[in-house]
């Protein structure tokens, strides 16, 4: 199947990219979105979130800019760049294949239509 661990993007990175897929968010909103989407199963180390955001920005996957929140407070918003969106799509697909492979190895089959 050809996946080795090195090709898998960091889980946190992937979750951050995914959290931003519907539009720009600030850091706090990103961490809330991740918590909500993983239904609490994956708790993000908040200390790790910001370095991840800044690294993704450095790599050109995110673009940051200062803006106003609904409550009119200054906050830094992050937006997926085109490059970031492409990366998200590719990594998601790879993750899915990887998960399937691991499930098969462990004898866990996911019945179609569920999960």
């Amino acid at each position: 199947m050809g996946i080795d661990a090195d090709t898998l993007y960091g889980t946190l990175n992937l979750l951050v990219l995914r959290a931003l897929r519907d539009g720009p968010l600030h850091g706090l909103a990103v961490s809330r979105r991740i918590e909500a989407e993983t239904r609490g199963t994956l708790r993000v180390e908040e200390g790790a979130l910001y370095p991840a955001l800044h690294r993704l920005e450095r790599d050109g996957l995110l673009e940051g800019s200062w803006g106003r929140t609904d409550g009119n407070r200054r906050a830094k918003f992050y937006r997926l760049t085109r490059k970031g969106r492409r990366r998200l799509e590719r990594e998601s697909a790879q993750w899915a294949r990887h998960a399937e492979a691991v499930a098969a190895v462990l004898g866990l089959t996911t019945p179609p239509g569920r999960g």
Partner: protein
Amino acid sequence: MREELEFHIEGRIRELVDQGWSEQGAREQVLDRFGDMEEVERLCREYDAQRIERDTWRWTVDGWMRDVRYALRGMRRNPGFSAVVVATLAIGIGACTAVFSVVEGIILRPLPFPEPERLAVVWQDDRATGTVREDASPADYFDYVERTRAFSELGLVASGTVVLTRPDAEPLRLSAAAVTPNLTSVLGLSVQLGRAFTPEENLPGGPGVAILSDGMWRRTFGADPTVVGKVVTIDGEPTEIVGVLETAIEFPSKGTDLWTPIRQTPAGATRQSHWVRVIGRLSPGATVASAQAEMTRIMAALEREHPEANTNRGAFVERLSDVGRSDLRRTLWVLLGAVLAVFLIACVNVANLLLARGAARAREFAVLGALGARPGQVRRRFAAEGLLVAGLSCAAGIALAAGGIRALTAMAPAELLVLGEPRLDTAVLGFALAVAAVVGVGFALLPTLQHRDRALQGALRDGRSADASMRMPVRRVLVAGQLGLAVVLLIAAGLLAGTLRSLQAVDPGFRPDNLLRVSFALPASRYPAMDTWPDWQEIHQFNRAVVDGVSSLPGVRSAALTLNHPLDPGWTNSFRIEGRPFDPDQGEMTTRLVSPSYFTTAGIELVAGRFLDDRDDLDGEPAIVLNREAARRYFPDGDALGSRIGFWGPNFRRIVGVVENERLHGLTADAPPTMYASLAQAPQRGGTVTLLVATEVPPLSLVDGVRRAVTSIDRDVPVFDVTTMAATVREASARERFASLVLGIFACVAVLLAVLGVHGVLAYLVAQRGREVGVRMALGATRRDVVRMIVGQGALMAGLGLTLGIVGALSLSGLLRGLLFGVSSTDPGIYAAVVGGLGLVALMATALPAARAAGIDPASSLRGE
């Protein structure tokens, strides 16, 4: 950064407070969950710094790309202008690069040996005859080896020809070099196959062995890897091939096919005959100068020890890389200087064009500035234009240079190409890039220099070019400089053309028209070379048969044999005159061995007595004929005829005739004293014989017949070097022809460009000062006054330019002196013609702008622009 994290912390605290936590408890909880705040902040700052660094770089690149795209758009908007600029520069760069490739290939490229600067030739010179660069005698060589400290090793090489006979193919005449076994180590060469010669193989009577050059191995043996050990027949002797030299090495000259051992030992070495070239590798620490001093001492000692052979002989040590190049160097540097001058003229024209357009673009600058562009950004925009122009011209120039190199190679004399082939290698490409870079930087800076702040504001205020009048003096001086360079080039070309004319007017002393020249070589095996009288019957029979056979061909007027054709310097012999004491300071005489028909065939006229004829054979009294120079110098009382001269052993030969001087050392040198003896009365050592055929039809149409006539006598005799004497004469002035042709082309281009420059500046002047002209005319100036003003401006520029040119040409005339013949380097006629002609042309270039100025309508020009 801190603000971002603070926002996060505050948000989380509010969440917890909303869930009922105390403010204090919530803060502790959040901070605890967050982890090491300092570390997080440090990491984030690090990533930010990296991002900013990368973005700055990308902005710069993006900015340049944008400016280059902008410049490209600008060029497309103005295709005519851009094409002129790029084409002018491309031609300039191409021409410079092509000429540089010749200089690089012949002068600058190092010889293909390790540490080539330590290799030198030890020539001999002769104070009596004034000759330099003579070969040494083998005995002198062995004394050098014994006494030298300046050279770590000395070797010998002597060029000649051999004949390779093959059972199933035509005989091949090969260019061979006889060498000492140590020559490979002197030169630092290795063999790619087999081995070098052993000392035993160098002994007289040693085995027949040969080392092939790489070229010969590929051409004749199809790069056969098993060639070593094969036995071939060379000059009739079985010869074993023991090695193949390194790739691409042909020594001592391009086209050398093989090496054989020179077979000289101190015991049997002669001191009388000078036929070996001494090649040495300098010891560590020794220089050419120190080697020269040492060899001069050694030769002085040898002169004392062997006065019979070494009187008047000295040493001349020349770096191997200079051999054959010392005369060419000047020609090539002059050509490179000339092409750089043409390029400079082209650059001035382009600069003038850019300045003119730049003035028109003053508004563009002003607008950019007013819109808030920083000076740096404005500069970058124009720098991008300059670099784009330079890049395009460079690419086109290199393509043109490739063609130029082919053209130059086709025009260049053979003597030049033997020394090194011009090609587009890295050094030449580097030169092209360097020239383009200088041009690019220059043109990138030009607009910025032109538009300084003052000009910017002025342009914006009144919407007109603030530059024009301000910078005109600079442009006029540039154009005058252009004219000056054109004058220098034109004078140089004129002097070289005069040289060529003088050369063509030289009477060589023989008639080269309708004279075919071919060479053949007699294999030594069947034509033994005996030095003893009169044992060379086989050779004489062959010679007679060839002359008779060729003479009877239809279309042939006469045929003759000689060992050295006209314009071939040949060799000299010492001699004594019967009844006089031997005079060691009399020098030597050039000796020519010819068949009796030589004089009538070559068209050499009789001055007194008779030509050699068939009486002068083995049964007759030994006879010689002198040239007029020999008779004048050695028999000033007119008593040459009937006197007797001795050379080669005890016999004296009677002088039976005196003939006109035939030039031997090129066209420019007077004929040296020369004596002619009949081949029928002289020993002939195999080797190459030249056959001259005077024809009634175009000479080359008879080549096949002549070749058949020779091979019908002996099919193993190869015929080669087929040419005409007319071509030989042309070749003798090939370097001058090449230099004057190339310089002539450059001079024409220079004049054209300079005249365009004059015209361009004046036309621009008229365009810019139309309003002023209008005012003057409105104030009562006549059209005549206006024309006078414009022509006056032109005359001023032309006068300045011509003066600069004459001063330049006079101060550079010393450089040309060595290249000229029959023309003084300050020939007033040529100077006057160039100045007059160019002055007239420059004035004509003012006519069009002047006419346009005279046509200006004062009313409309005053109403506004």
